[in-house]
């Protein structure tokens, strides 16, 4: 008998091209819908796919439930960052931020509601937008990315109110410190800067790479990820993943993780981080590694915790990165299954 071929379907030009695209896909960003039942994921081809978490988590989930409900071409370039308000999905990538109505998308009508471009200084190359941050109290959207500035956009009117300058290289990530309110931004120049939203001024600067405990010069000095818990901040990237006390600007705990981390978040009393390497790492605040749960992508870029109160059954952690798959962890101990583009 002939050896069973590994390909079941004869691969024509289209199938080969699609397979190659899927192999080289990177999922950069995720966002959970306001109702909590759907997950949007944006990839490097500019597509956004909407997955139905409730269908995939239900007991009669089939293979098709793990495929997107709808996929649409949102941007020309990669979709680096997405956030959701209570009605809209905001996505940003190559220089523009676009808004989509969740209700429309769920009905598969994928027309952008509006798009906005912050006023850039350079015109040679359109800078990318790497991070979006919602400030719900002031109804602001803060964008930051390739032009080294933080732009604030009023969500009501769509005007750009002010731009905060200070970073010397492009900005990777943003975090919101609710109490003050302040915005933290981490960038390629290795500094974490704190900005006061009311006065629109830089309040504090922490140059992480200058601290011996956490700097790792062979990796570079870039800050890839930030998370803050009002008094505390954890950041990582080129330097090691470190927990800082903000008021005193001192590093309190250095987490022993060799691979650069690209996403970090506080969760209950743990810190979850992910980056180069397959695993989602769970750390105690003391610096001990509680668990390392492997995912299916060789490197992870984005973690998303679905904590929407409206859908407690969809409370999962989803992780995405250097593949076309989004891993779903129903319980932080193991990977339940993967959604796939």
């Amino acid at each position: 008998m002939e050896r069973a071929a590994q390909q079941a379907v004869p691969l024509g030009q289209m199938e080969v091209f699609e397979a190659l695209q899927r192999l080289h896909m990177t999922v950069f960003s995720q966002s959970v819908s306001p109702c909590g039942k759907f997950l949007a994921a944006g990839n490097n081809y500019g597509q956004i796919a909407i997955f139905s978490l409730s269908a995939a988590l239900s007991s009669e989930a089939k293979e098709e439930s793990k495929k997107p409900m709808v996929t649409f071409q949102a941007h020309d370039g990669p979709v680096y960052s997405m956030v959701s308000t209570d009605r809209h999905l905001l996505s940003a990538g190559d220089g523009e931020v676009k808004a989509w109505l969740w209700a429309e998308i769920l009905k598969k009508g994928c027309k952008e509601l509006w798009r906005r471009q912050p006023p850039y200084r350079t015109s040679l190359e359109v800078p990318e937008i790497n991070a979006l941050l919602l400030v719900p109290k002031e109804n602001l959207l803060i964008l930051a990315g390739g032009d080294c500035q933080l732009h604030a956009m009023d969500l009501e009117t769509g005007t750009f109110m002010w731009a905060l300058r200070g970073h010397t290289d492009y900005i990777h990530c943003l975090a919101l410190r609710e109490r003050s309110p302040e915005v933290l931004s981490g960038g390629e120049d290795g500094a974490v800067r704190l900005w006061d939203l009311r006065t629109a001024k830089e309040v504090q600067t922490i140059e992480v790479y200058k601290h011996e405990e956490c700097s790792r010069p062979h990796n570079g000095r870039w800050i890839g990820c930030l998370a803050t818990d009002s008094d505390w901040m954890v950041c990582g990237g080129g330097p090691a993943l470190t927990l800082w006390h903000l008021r005193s600007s001192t590093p309190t705990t250095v987490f022993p993780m060799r691979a650069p981390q690209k996403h970090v978040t506080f969760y209950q009393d743990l810190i979850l981080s992910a980056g180069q390497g397959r695993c989602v790492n769970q750390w105690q605040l003391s610096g001990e590694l509680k668990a390392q749960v492997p995912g299916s992508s060789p490197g992870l870029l984005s973690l998303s915790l679905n904590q929407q109160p409206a859908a407690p059954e969809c409370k999962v952690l989803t992780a995405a990165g250097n593949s076309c798959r989004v891993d779903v962890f129903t319980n932080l101990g193991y990977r339940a299954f993967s959604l796939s583009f």
Partner: protein
Amino acid sequence: MSSESSKKRKPKVIRSDGAPAEGKRTRSDTEQEGKYYSEEAEVDLRDPGRDYELYKYTCQELQRLMAEIQDLKSRGGKDAAVEIEDRRIQSCVHFMTLKKLNRLAHIRLKKGRDQTHEAKQKVDAYHLQLQNLLYEVMHLQKEITKCLEFKSKHEEIDLVSLEEFYKEAPPDISKAEVTMGDPHQQTLARLDWELEQRKRLAEKYRECLSNKEKILKEIEVKKEYLSSLQPRLNSIMQASLPVQEYLFMPFDQAHKQYETARHLPPPLYVLFVQATAYGQACDKMLSVAIEGSVDEAKALFKPPEDSQDDESDSDAEEEQTTKRRRPTLGVQLDDKRKEMLKRHPLSVLLDLKCKDDSVLHLTFYYLMNLNIMTVKARVTTATELITPISAGDLLSPDSVLSCLYPGDHGKKTPNPANQYQFDKVGILTLRDYVLDLGHPYLWVQKLGGLHFPKEQPQHTVITDHSLSASHMETTMKLLKTRVQSRLALHKQFASLEHGIVPVTSDCHYLFPAKVVSRLVKWVTIAHEDYTELHFTKDIVEAGLAGDTNLYYMALVERGTAKLQAAVVLNPGYSSIPPIFQLCLNWKGEKTNNNDDNIRAMESEVNVCYKELCGPRPGHQLLTNQLQRLCVLLDVYLETESHDDSVEGPKEFPQEKMCLRLFRGPSRIKPFKYNHPQGFFSHR
């Protein structure tokens, strides 16, 4: 007293009786107190009940008198005798009465009997009448039913419908006024019309018959005339041969070919016809010829209905003879296999000439018992080719036509019925025999009009010209592209093996002027070796690395950096792009698993291949991809950020003009080259 009256009438009674009384009776009826006396009449007058009383009284008197006489006689005496005499006379009178009564009774009885008899006779007569009448009734009823059931022959004839009848029949037959009202007349009229029509048609029929006879005769005459022409035409054709050759119009040659073609089996015939037609209509570079022995074909090829039986007969005969001559099972099985895989003696030869004077020779065979067609391919070039080592498989007859259409690897028989045949003679798969028999590609079957549905095995040969025609053009184009791309690759490999990436002048714009990284090695590797490599797991898992592909390893170097690239070349190159997987050895081993930039480089070469295709038909794709790989390595090495902790200058100073070094969360290097400005940016 009645006795006194009867005394008086006694002598008349004795005389009148019998027939004369009858006549008289009537008279006595009218004359009751008439002249003479009729006892019959008297009977009617007397009351039987009173007579009975009288009888009883008389009997009593008699008895009394007798008793008295007895008395007197027993006493004796003188006056007794007188008394006795007296009584005797009285008793005599009584006796007379009794006698009369007796007579009357008899007469009454007789009368009664007569009456009964008469009545009975009457009843009998009536009864008989009734029977007769009933019998007649029954008979009449039978007759009636018979009459009613009578089917006249005329009802069996299909008459034209009423409306038609009234429309068509001439008025003198249809007589509408009469027939409308009277169904009997109507039927008669219709029958008349029917008869008329039949007569007319019979006439026509006779006429047609006679016409036919005439025409047949004419045909005979013409046939004879034509057959007399045949030898004359032949001689004219012979005479015209030199003229044809002089004028380059080889009608005769084509004619001879068509003659031979008649002996081709149906699939090859379809192929021949379609290919010739295509060649004449669309593609002057296609030439079709038939090879093989016509005599053998004639011996084999009989009308299609018999051919199957014939071959099975000859099979059976051969089996028998082999049984007698060679008793060993193995050799016998071998013979059976040979028989099953037997080819038809005629084959069709197609020569596809390409623009650069290289020719693809295709020989199509038909395997009779398996009912499939196979093809053997050969490429000849205008100039002698020196085959570089890595290009060994490119033009080999075994693989040059592999996967012309996706998945069509030609190692398995396309006819599902063959599996059962193979089981009988112990053939596992046709793959073992393809080198000898040729490849049974699916497109070859389609060109021969053989259609094999996937599910059911097919035993009948249905050859379909439309199937062949629709595939002919596509397949010929694909064949040409295939040959040309293989030849292009052939040339390119020769250059690659010497470490030079041959970039044609019209693709120079894709790359910067200065490329420092060099290709140092280009070799073929086996399929198993490719799947064993640690950085190719993704491709293998995605099912893109099957055994019909060709695998190569390229090595690009610059300084201390060595970049290994494993290449999957799909037979459908260049419409299906080659796939590269990279592994960089420089300050550690970097693959797409641990370095996002390697992943981005692979993406630049694999996913963005369309810009590298170059001018149509895109045979420059592989070399452009390789050149781009060298450029990417340059960018990677030069833009690597300097590690401040290590002393010394950077190994690779940055010479490329880049706007930004890193972008995006993955911090990708600027791999996109912008022409003509000459700087690098991000996608």
